[in-house]
C-alpha cells in the first residue's frame, strides 16, 4: 500500500498544494456523506380530490347501502347530507348518504342508465339530451329555480338608458361564452334599445381584476349575482335586475326508490339551498300531501 502511494506520488508531485487538496477533498467528501446519511425525506403526500361528503344514517334498518346524490355545486353539501342522515325515512332503505359534486359535464348517460345516483340536481335539457327515456327512470321533485342577475353600480341614479350611459364605462369579462358576465348583460342592453357600438366597454381577463377596477371606481357598471357579496358589498350598491334569469336546474330522484315520504324528506332537506335563490324570491314548494306526513 505504502509502496503504491509512493509510486503514485512519483507520477503526481506531492507537495503542499496536493496535501491540502487531499485534506479538503476528505473534508468535503465526508460532509457530503454525512449530509446524505442524515437527509430527512418527508413522506409522500397523497391527497385525494374533495368532491364528496359522506355520512352514516343514524337509525338505519339496512346495512352497506349508499344513497348517492349528484350536485352541480359543493355549497351546503354537508348540511344537506346531515339532514338526510338524520332522516328516518331514508334510513329505511339506506345506511349512508354520499353527496357528490361534479362539473355539469361530468355526468354520463351510463351513470343515468345504471342509476348511479338516486338524487340528481341537473338541467332537464342536458339529461334528456343524454338519455331519451329519462322520464321513465327519474322523477322530477322540484322545478328549476331562477338565479337573478343584476347590473351593479356605485351611482345611485344608475339606469339602463342611453342618456345615463353616454359618459359611463361598463366592465365585462373578456369571455364571450360567459352567460352571466357577457352574454346576458349584453342582451339586456340590446333589449333597452342601446347601441352597443357606441358604449364604452372595458374587458377584463378575470373576475378579480374586474371587481378590483370596480372597487377603485374606475368603471361604473358591472354585471353581478347576489353570491358575489364576498368580493363586493352588494347591499351598498344600486342594483338593476336583468329580466333574463339563469336556470339552476331541476331536482330528480330515481323512480326505483322514490316514495311520497322520501319525496317530502328530500324537499325538506333541500331547503338548505334557499340562500342561493334569495334574490329571485323563490320558494320551494312541497307537494300538498307532505303536510299530512
Amino acid at each position, binding site marked *: 500500500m505504502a509502496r503504491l502511494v509512493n509510486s503514485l506520488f512519483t507520477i503526481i508531485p506531492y507537495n503542499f498544494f496536493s496535501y491540502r487538496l487531499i485534506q479538503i477533498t476528505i473534508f468535503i467528501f465526508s460532509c457530503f456523506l454525512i449530509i446524505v446519511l*442524515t437527509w430527512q425525506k418527508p*413522506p409522500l403526500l397523497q391527497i*385525494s380530490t374533495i368532491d364528496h361528503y359522506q355520512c352514516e344514517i343514524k337509525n338505519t334498518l339496512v346495512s352497506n347501502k349508499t344513497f348517492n346524490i349528484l350536485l352541480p355545486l359543493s*355549497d351546503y353539501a354537508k348540511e344537506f347530507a346531515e339532514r338526510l342522515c338524520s332522516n328516518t325515512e331514508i334510513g329505511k332503505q339506506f345506511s349512508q348518504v354520499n353527496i357528490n359534486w361534479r362539473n355539469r359535464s361530468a355526468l354520463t348517460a351510463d351513470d343515468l342508465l345504471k342509476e348511479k345516483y338516486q338524487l340528481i340536481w341537473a338541467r332537464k335539457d342536458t339529461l334528456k339530451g343524454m338519455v331519451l327515456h329519462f322520464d321513465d327512470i327519474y322523477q322530477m321533485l322540484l322545478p328549476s329555480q331562477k338565479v337573478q342577475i343584476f347590473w351593479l353600480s356605485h351611482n345611485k341614479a344608475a339606469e339602463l338608458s342611453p342618456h345615463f350611459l353616454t359618459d359611463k364605462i361598463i366592465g365585462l369579462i373578456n369571455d364571450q361564452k360567459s352567460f352571466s358576465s357577457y352574454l346576458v348583460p349584453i342582451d339586456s342592453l340590446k333589449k333597452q334599445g342601446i347601441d352597443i357600438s357606441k358604449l364604452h366597454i372595458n374587458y377584463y381577463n378575470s373576475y378579480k381584476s374586474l371587481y378590483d377596477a370596480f372597487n377603485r371606481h374606475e368603471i361604473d357598471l358591472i354585471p353581478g349575482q347576489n353570491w358575489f357579496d364576498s368580493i363586493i358589498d352588494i347591499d351598498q350598491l344600486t342594483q338593476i335586475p336583468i329580466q333574463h334569469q339563469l336556470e339552476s336546474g331541476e331536482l330528480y330522484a330515481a323512480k326505483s326508490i322514490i316514495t311520497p315520504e322520501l319525496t317530502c324528506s328530500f324537499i325538506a332537506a333541500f331547503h338548505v339551498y334557499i340562500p342561493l335563490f334569495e334574490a329571485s324570491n323563490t320558494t320551494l314548494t312541497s307537494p300538498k300531501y307532505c303536510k299530512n306526513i
Partner: protein
Amino acid sequence: MKIKRQQFNYLIYWLISTIVFLIVLLVINQLSFKNQVSTQLNKHLSPELTKAFQQHIIDKNYKNLVKSNLNQQLALTNALTHFNIFKRYSLTIEALFSESDHSNLHTIYVPWQFGLEAKQAKVILDYQIRWWLIICICSISTFIILVLIHLVPKPVSSHYKQWLNLLKSLQVEDDIAKALSDKIEITDTSKKDWLKSLLTKILEDNQLTENVNINDLVIWFLNKTTDDLQQISQIKFIDALYQSTINIDQAYQLAKKTCVLSFNIDTFTININNFEIKLAKTPFFYYLWYAYLKVNNVDAGWLINPSINHPDTQSANTITTLMKENHGHSKSINELETHGLRAKTLDQNRNKIKETLISQLGEELSQPYLFDLLRDTKTGRFKYRLKLDAESIKLPQAIKNTLTQK
C-alpha cells in the same frame, strides 16, 4: 506537559468543529426538509384545493369542510417510519386564506387558485429534533474527519529531501535515512548548518566515509545542544574521527577548544581531554619534565639540547631523582648517572612521545601536545619546549613537591 497541551488543542478543535457542523447540518436539513415539504404541497395540495372550490358558490361553511377534510388526509401521512434526526412530524392547514407572508421554518404558504383569484393557504409544518442523535452523529463524524485529515502524510520539504539525499549518499539505509531526516528537520537551524558542513566534509573524504558510522553520528548529534557543539572545533572533530580507535564521544572530547593535559604517574599515562594515552616509562618522564619546565616557566619552558662534549648534568640529576622516586627504568637511570643528559637521549625520547601521540591522535590532533623548535642564538644549538599553554597543563601534586625541593 507539551503533549497535554497539544491534546487540549485537538479537543478544542473537535468541539468547535462539532458545533459548527451541528449548526450547518441542522440548517441544511431543516431548510431542505421544508423545501421538500413545500414542493410536495405545491404539487399535491395546491391543485386539490383549487379543484375543491371549483363547484363552490357562496357557502361559507364549506371552507371549514375542506380544511378539516384536508387535515384528516394530512394526518394520515403524518405517521412515518423513515426518520432519524427528526421525529413527530405533522402537517396541518392553519388557514386556507392567509394574507400574511411571514414564512419561517415551520410555516409554509401554499399558493392556489380560488376561482379567478390567487390565494395562499398557511400550512404549519411541525417536527421535533432528536438532539442526542444529531449531537452523536456530529461529534463522531467530526472526530473521524479530523483523524482522517490528520492522517494525511505531510509533504516532504525540499530541505527534508536534501537531508535524505545527503544521508543516502553516505550509504545510510533508506528507512534509517528517512527516520533521521525527520528528526533533523525539527532541530535548530544553527545545529543543522553544523551537521550539514560536517556531513559534507565526511562525504568528500572516502576514508572518513568508511570510518564513521553515520547513523551513530547523527543520533549522537541529535542529543547534543547547540552550546555543546559550540564548544568544539569541527576541524579537530573531523581529525579525531579519522582515527578508527577513537569513538564519537572521545572525538568530541578531543575536539574541545580548551585543551587539558594531565599526567598519571602511577600508570604512566597522559590524559588529553579525558582521552588516555599510555606512554613508555622513560618517554613519560621526559614528557613530564618538559611539562614541568613549561608550567614553572623555567627559561620560558625552553630546554637547550646539550652539546656533545658537555652533557647537562644538572638536568640529568633532576630527571634521575624523578625516575627514582617513581619507579623509573633502572637502565635509563644508570645511563643518565654515567653519561649525564645528552642531546641524543632527548631526541630519542621526544621522537618516541611524538610517535605515540601521532599513532593515537593522528598528525593534526596531536600537534598542540608536541614541541616547539628553535635554534638558540648563543649556542647555535636547537632548543625545545611544549607547545601547550602552561594553564592547560596539570602536573601531579607529588611531582611538584619533589622538583621544588630540588
